[in-house]
């Protein structure tokens, strides 16, 4: 039986350790891949994922049950990824207006599969987007979050998120066609 977010919240309330394990079982992969798409490098993604989970467990009582747990978790993971990028000075003056494409190199990482050229080019196209569009695209396309949930993650309105997602898609298609 699939574990729901409500099951996780209930478990966290009854037995913190069981709750933590349930949360990790459900979210370790989605949050890691979300962070990895932002920071690119595996080691950085691992550090940011661990820090994100520690932050999640330490501040779980701050999560309001009225809000989506998934959105709250992705917001913490996103913040951790942006914090790491900023801390490492990989993205000097990094903000949601900036693109990270020039700052990150896909092939610089040991855990990179260069056998899938099309998938690599798509990631390069995504990394060329401004961060707000990048986030909107990633969270919608890969993680299938709703526009409202993405709005919670990014602190924007759902309408803005929708616009960013469509702009991102258009730019990606253009990039892919030009770099075919």
């Amino acid at each position: 039986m699939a574990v729901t977010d409500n099951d996780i919240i209930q478990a966290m309330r009854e037995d913190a350790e069981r709750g933590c394990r349930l949360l990790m079982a459900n979210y370790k992969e989605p949050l890691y891949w979300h962070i990895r798409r932002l920071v690119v490098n595996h080691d950085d993604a691992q550090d940011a994922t661990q820090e994100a989970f520690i932050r999640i467990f330490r501040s779980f009582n701050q999560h309001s049950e009225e809000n989506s747990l998934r959105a709250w978790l992705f917001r913490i993971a996103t913040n951790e990824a942006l914090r790491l990028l900023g801390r490492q000075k990989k993205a000097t003056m990094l903000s949601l207006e900036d693109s990270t494409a020039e700052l990150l190199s896909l092939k610089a990482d040991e855990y990179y599969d260069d056998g899938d050229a099309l998938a690599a080019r798509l990631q390069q196209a995504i990394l060329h987007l401004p961060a707000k569009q990048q986030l909107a695209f990633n969270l919608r396309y890969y993680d299938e979050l709703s526009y409202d949930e993405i709005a919670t993650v990014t602190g924007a309105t759902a309408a803005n998120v929708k616009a960013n997602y469509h702009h991102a898609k258009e730019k990606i298609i253009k990039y892919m066609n030009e770099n075919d």
Partner: protein
Amino acid sequence: MDNTFDFNSVGKRMPYTVPDGFFDTIEENVMQEVAAKKEKANPGKNRKKVVTIAIRSLLATAAAVALFFVVRAVIPKADTTPVDDFASVELAFNNLSNDDQDFLLALYEEDEYIEELQQDQEL
């Protein structure tokens, strides 16, 4: 805009990989870090436990010592003055009638245990 690129041709594939067993180990790393940070954040909790145990042990010891003195004060001291056991037995024996003395002597003469004791002493 030329709309030839199809997202379905890539789907959710990514060029990224992870080390073998990565997702199995990251969970344990996080749980260990959470436990370590919890311990670091609440160092007083364990110290408090140790202090509580120490105070309880101290109180138990104090109670045992107090009980010892109370019992000693309440129960009268037993007379432990040494006595000359042989003299008192002889005195008691002499106070017996002749018949009783004969009876006792006859009885002990037939007692095998006393006989063995006497043989041992002779050896």
